């Protein structure tokens, strides 16, 4: 089992520049897809363009060596896309367009203001961050060191998710149950008579 220091060292020296370029290209593609999804008149192509964002994220996860996340993302993205396509095919394919009135211009101005403020704070926070791929959180070391002996799990992610961070996982599962209850409450109004 490799030590934590070695892991960080060969991570940021060899692959860093390639990784930065690849992830920048994929992120740019995702932004283009999201912009197209907003402006497309045909709702079916807008839904498909949303898929670019999800599958681009899958490739980013794989490049960053997170196969657990990539599996979940690719499956959830596929099922969401199927449901969205079914909904679009069943309702209308054309987006309704109306000219913005006074309230619309106020909303546009507010969102531009929020965007500027967010970019300002992003710029401040990015300057204080480490370079991409180097540096790690304070808790990452203790998790990687000897996690296999502590939890008995060969897959570190499962060890963290169900052992060290069990509360979080229980919360996620509960959120899923609550979401299903909400969907049933809204959609099954007629219920079982």
């Amino acid at each position, binding site marked *: 089992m490799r030590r934590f220091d070695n892991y960080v060292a060969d991570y940021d020296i060899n692959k860093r520049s390639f990784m930065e370029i690849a992830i920048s290209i994929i992120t740019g593609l995702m932004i283009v897809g999201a912009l197209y999804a907003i402006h497309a008149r045909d709702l079916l192509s807008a839904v498909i363009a949303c898929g670019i964002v999800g599958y681009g994220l899958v490739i980013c996860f794989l490049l960053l060596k997170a196969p657990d996340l990539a599996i979940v993302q690719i499956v959830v993205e596929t099922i969401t896309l199927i449901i969205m396509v079914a909904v679009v095919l069943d309702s209308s394919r054309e987006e309704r367009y109306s000219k913005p009135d006074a309230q619309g211009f106020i909303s546009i101005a507010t969102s531009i203001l929020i965007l500027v403020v967010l970019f300002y704070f992003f710029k401040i926070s990015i300057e204080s961050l480490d370079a991409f791929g180097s540096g790690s959180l304070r808790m990452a070391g203790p998790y990687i060191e000897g996690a296999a002996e502590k939890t008995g799990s060969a897959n570190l992610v499962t060890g963290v998710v*169900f052992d060290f961070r*069990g509360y979080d996982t229980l919360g996620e599962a509960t959120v899923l149950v609550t979401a299903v209850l909400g969907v049933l409450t809204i959609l099954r109004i007629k219920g079982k008579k």
Partner: protein
Amino acid sequence: MKGMTVIVKKTTQLIAGIVFLYGIYIIIHGHLTPGGGFAGGVILAGSFILLILSFGSDFINLTKEEAGTTMYENLAILVVVFLAVSGLLIGARVFFLNWLPKGNVGELVSAGLLPLFNIFVGIEVASSILTIFLALVIFKEEISE
């Protein structure tokens, strides 16, 4: 919702079982290889969604199926909570205590409680996603009647 053509139906017959087995594999090997309860559960739900989409909604009794998935979802989350609490009952007063013997790292039966957590979270996620899908399909059927 109507079924699709005979080509799609035949391909689904060949593929759906393999997808189902792959989901079970991902769940059971969750503590050894990438994946786990969440990923495997969504794959399991995907195999059922594939069947319902290709064979149409009168292929199975949707309302009966939905009652079953709702029950399994609630039972599975109950078992997860019980497993988490079981550490309190065994002796040490720790929530989410991994009290079963750890075994050898890398074997299929190892890591104490973690495979059990994976299995029940997998059942819970699969039945949750299937319930949401079935609720949408039933809603559409009721609207069109």
